[in-house]
Structure formats: structure tokens, C-alpha cells
């Protein structure tokens, strides 16, 4: 069974970056709002439920960007974002998911 936390720890170990804080952070999207912004300066937000997001959702940040496409597997969706993060749900969506991140504050 693939474990998000193990993967994240391996990633940061490869980069020789220590982790000061690790916790869960989620954004609850609500009808009819399509756009959301959150700050993650000097920290990382790692998306853990890409598979639950509507096709066409875009997450744009200062360091990484992602658009959910058909067949986006959960492994590919473990993406990290940092800086100013903007989440855009597709205009035609009827799905308003809870977007789950793991917040990592590095040393």
C-alpha cells in the first residue's frame, strides 16, 4: 500500500531538507465559488487527493502548477505547491470537493 507520508519523507530526505512541522490542511470548496487562494510562503502544501478533484481543476502556485486531466492517477497527483497558490475549479463543474493537502514547514 502506497503511503503518502513515507513518500513525502523520502522526497525531503533526498533533498536533504529537514521537516519542522507536518500537518493536514484542507480547503472546502463551496458552490458557486470557483476560485480560491491560499498562502504557502516558505512552506509546502502537498496535494493528496488529486483523484477527488473534477477534471480540469487547476492549481497554480509560484513553484509548481497542475491541471487535473482524465486518468490522473493518485500517484501522479502527489504534487507540491509553494508560495501563493490559486485553485481554479472548472466553470461547468457541479462538484465541490474538499481539497486535502499535507502542509510541510521545512527547517
Amino acid at each position, binding site marked *: 500500500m502506497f503511503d503518502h507520508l513515507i513518500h513525502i519523507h523520502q522526497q525531503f530526505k533526498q533533498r536533504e531538507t529537514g521537516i519542522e512541522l507536518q500537518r493536514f490542511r484542507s480547503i472546502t470548496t463551496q458552490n458557486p465559488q470557483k476560485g480560491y487562494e491560499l498562502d504557502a510562503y516558505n512552506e509546502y502544501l502537498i496535494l493528496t487527493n488529486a483523484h477527488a478533484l473534477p477534471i480540469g481543476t487547476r492549481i*497554480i502556485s509560484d*513553484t509548481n502548477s497542475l491541471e487535473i486531466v482524465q486518468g490522473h492517477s493518485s500517484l501522479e497527483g502527489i504534487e507540491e505547491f509553494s508560495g501563493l497558490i490559486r485553485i481554479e475549479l472548472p466553470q461547468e463543474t457541479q462538484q465541490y470537493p474538499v481539497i486535502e493537502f499535507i502542509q510541510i514547514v521545512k527547517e
Partner: protein
Amino acid sequence: MVGTRYNIIRLQVDRPGQIVRFQHKIPSYLKRCTGFVAKHVQGVQTDFYMPEIGWISASFNSLKEEAIVAPISAQPFYEPEEPSGFQTLDVSLKPGQLVVGVYVDSMKSNFFPYMVSLYLRCVPTARIQVSKQTDPSPKETKVIHSRIDAKSNRKNCEDYSQEDDNTDEHDYNNDQLCSII
């Protein structure tokens, strides 16, 4: 003589809002990147200057160092291309690792497929380290500084107290400008 080498990363954008990912391995003999230019090179035809058609971000040493976040602009076709200088970069490269990044298109209208290039200027020499003998250790520096600060604090506070004709004893604290009674 230092041999400067330029790495070029070309990114093709085919649809509005496209997110283009890239990764590029810089040759192992290059030790340091000293500059970059990210620019639109082909495709967008415009009569006016477009300050942002998208933006690029890149990290070095396999995600260890986030070093570049830059907007990409488009020049009007009749304006001669500026001999745009490289923006300064100072990244020490670890051997065998990747430059990883994304380009995000932000053109709102009149989209044409276009191409963006990221030029990295790198050199095969590492950063010159200052020898330890000439440079006092950080610990020593801190001690000296704190002594100087304490002396100047004391002097300033004495001046201050003399002006006020205040002859009370003071407890000197290095962390504050003047002691508080």
C-alpha cells in the same frame, strides 16, 4: 580561463492556459549557474507590448533549490529585439541532478501556438570560497559584535543619563538600546 556554457530549454505552448512541464539535466562538469533569460522566441504576433503571456518557474539540483520565477513578455513585431541581459543567478550545481520546472500560459485572448526558451548561463568553476584563516569564525564574530554593542550601548546610555542628570544605577542589557529603570 572560465568557459561559459549556455543550456537552452525550449517549451512549446499549443493551447491557452497550458501548463508545460520540463526537466533538463545540466552536464556534470558545470558547477555553477550564474544567469538566466526566459523569453518568448516564436509564435506570438502582436502590435503592442504584452508584459505577460505566461510565467515560468524552475528549481535546481532536483528540487532542492527554487531559483527562478519569472514572467514572460512578448514584444511587438516591429520593435527590434532588445539584447536582453541575463538576470543574475547564483546556484551551485550538484552533479547529476535536474533542473525541473513548469511554464504556465496566461494569455487571455488572441492565442497562437508559440515557443518560449529558457537560457541558463553556467560555468565549470565552483564559487570561490574565502579562506578560513583570514575570516574570523562566526562564533568569534558574534562575541566581538556583542562586546562592541555592549560598549556602545553603555556609552549611549551614559550619554542619555547624563543629559537627564539621572545618576541612578542601571542594569545594562545587551539586547536593548538603553536600560529601563
